[in-house]
């Protein structure tokens, strides 16, 4: 009566071995990505099939952009703090509050323009078809998604009641 059990258990062991081997083989690339120094940029390289030279250029652009972005963020934070201080001293939209709001909006517009310029530069550093794919994807996830997030994707949110 031992042989049937040997066959049954042996089959299950074989299945477990096959599962482990195929899982390890199939997940090699994502494990390698996660172990990279900069996994997000390594993902970009893998997703948009970049050569080493293209990747090096994009990595340099990314470093320059994030450094400048941090400085812009600091200025936006300072302007927001100034606006909060003004709002705490008044109970209406005074000319000073209006000016601070305009300045904050100007800084946010600058920030978005710099972001868009970065996307163009990155997309130009890629092969044309991949560059277009990158640009469409990243704009859809950044500039294109903000309004959608506010309305939860419902156009009806803008429709006037009674229409």
């Amino acid at each position: 009566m031992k042989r049937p059990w040997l066959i049954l258990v042996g089959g299950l062991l074989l299945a477990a071995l096959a599962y482990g081997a195929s899982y390890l083989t199939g997940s090699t690339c994502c494990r390698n990505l996660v172990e990279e120094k900069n996994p997000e940029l390594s993902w970009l390289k893998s997703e948009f099939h970049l050569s080493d030279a293209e990747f090096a250029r994009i990595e340099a652009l990314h470093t320059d952009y994030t450094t400048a972005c941090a400085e812009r963020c600091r200025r936006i934070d300072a302007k927001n703090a100034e606006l909060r201080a003004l709002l705490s001293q008044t109970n209406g939209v005074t000319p000073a509050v209006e000016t601070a709001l305009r300045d904050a909006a100007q800084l946010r517009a600058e920030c978005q323009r710099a972001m868009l310029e970065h996307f163009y530069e990155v997309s130009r550093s890629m092969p044309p078809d991949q560059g277009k794919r990158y640009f469409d994807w990243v704009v859809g996830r950044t500039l294109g998604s903000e309004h959608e997030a506010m309305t939860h994707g419902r156009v009806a949110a803008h429709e006037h009641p009674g229409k």
Partner: protein
Amino acid sequence: MKSEIPNDDPGRLHQLLQEWQVESALPPRFSEQVWRRIDRPDADSIATNPLAALRRSLAQWIVRPSFAFSYAAVLLAAGLFAGFWHAHAASQRVSQTLSARYVQMVDPYQMPRH
């Protein structure tokens, strides 16, 4: 039935057994049947217990080479498929996480600090 030999006299019983001669002939194929019974010690229980009969027929079925190879092949294929499918799902998850983190890195309005 009253015994002719007292229970407390094993020596006498032993002597009688030694003297006992079997004169009748064995039935045909007696030896073969004895070996068959030895090979199948649970034959009697199979005749009366349907569960034992099922177990026995399953065991006989499993040890057939055709079943054993099919069973191994199906489990091998299932293991390979499950492993690849799980790895694919894990890769998709990692890809989605990294793409979201890239977007957070380049879009200040999606950074956690904002």
